């Protein structure tokens, strides 16, 4: 099982802050495609970074069961 965290506008759009994908192995890009299809995010992950287990990752990073993926829309702290 792969855990996916959503924040800010993406979280509101999806209506949840956490999803569980019942898969053993996925690419970040595959997760993005699945979520885009499901929630129709207005900006299609534009400017959105990805993190795996709290470290930044790329679209072609492979995640496996037990990993936590987070999608990080453009940050605005400070």
């Amino acid at each position, binding site marked *: 099982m792969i855990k996916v*965290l959503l*924040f*800010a*506008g*993406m979280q*509101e*759009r999806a209506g949840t802050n956490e999803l569980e994908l019942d898969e053993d192995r996925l690419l970040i890009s595959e997760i993005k495609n699945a979520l885009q299809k499901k929630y129709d995010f*207005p*900006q299609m992950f534009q*400017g959105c970074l990805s*993190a795996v287990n*709290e470290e930044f990752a790329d679209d072609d990073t492979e995640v496996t069961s037990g990993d936590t993926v*987070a999608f*990080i*829309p*453009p*940050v*605005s*702290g*400070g």
Partner: protein
Amino acid sequence: MKSFEIVTEPILVQDIIDKVIRADAGAINTFIGTVREMTLGKRTTYLKYEAYVPMAEKQLAKIGDEISARWPGSNTAITHRIGSLDISEVAVVIAVSTPHRVESFDACRYAIERIKEIVPIWKKEHWDNGEMWVGDQLEKVSYSKGHPESEEDKND
């Protein structure tokens, strides 16, 4: 006492300063980010900050490491608050101590710029007639002037 922290309670500036005071530092620069009322002619009523807390704290610590490498002899502490903040409340406090004054300014400036690049924290502006996640720009109301023109003019 954590030097890099996300908190939900009000931040006391002196607490952050106390984390970096050292006998061999002659200078401490502090940056305090507060909630500004007017941004691009719109009156903010309050802000809401959200964070991916464990990763945000790691990223703040990473900024501290970058500063230590770049300005030897410096010490950095950063606390960012999340949740609902009213006008003039403190959202972030950065304190950097260095042996001499010039580096304290440069290092503290570096810290706030990096926070705006690599730390997973998001700000939602609330006005009388709407709200918007800054950066994400999913405005919940139509806004006569269109989207804010420039990142530079945002609430910083």
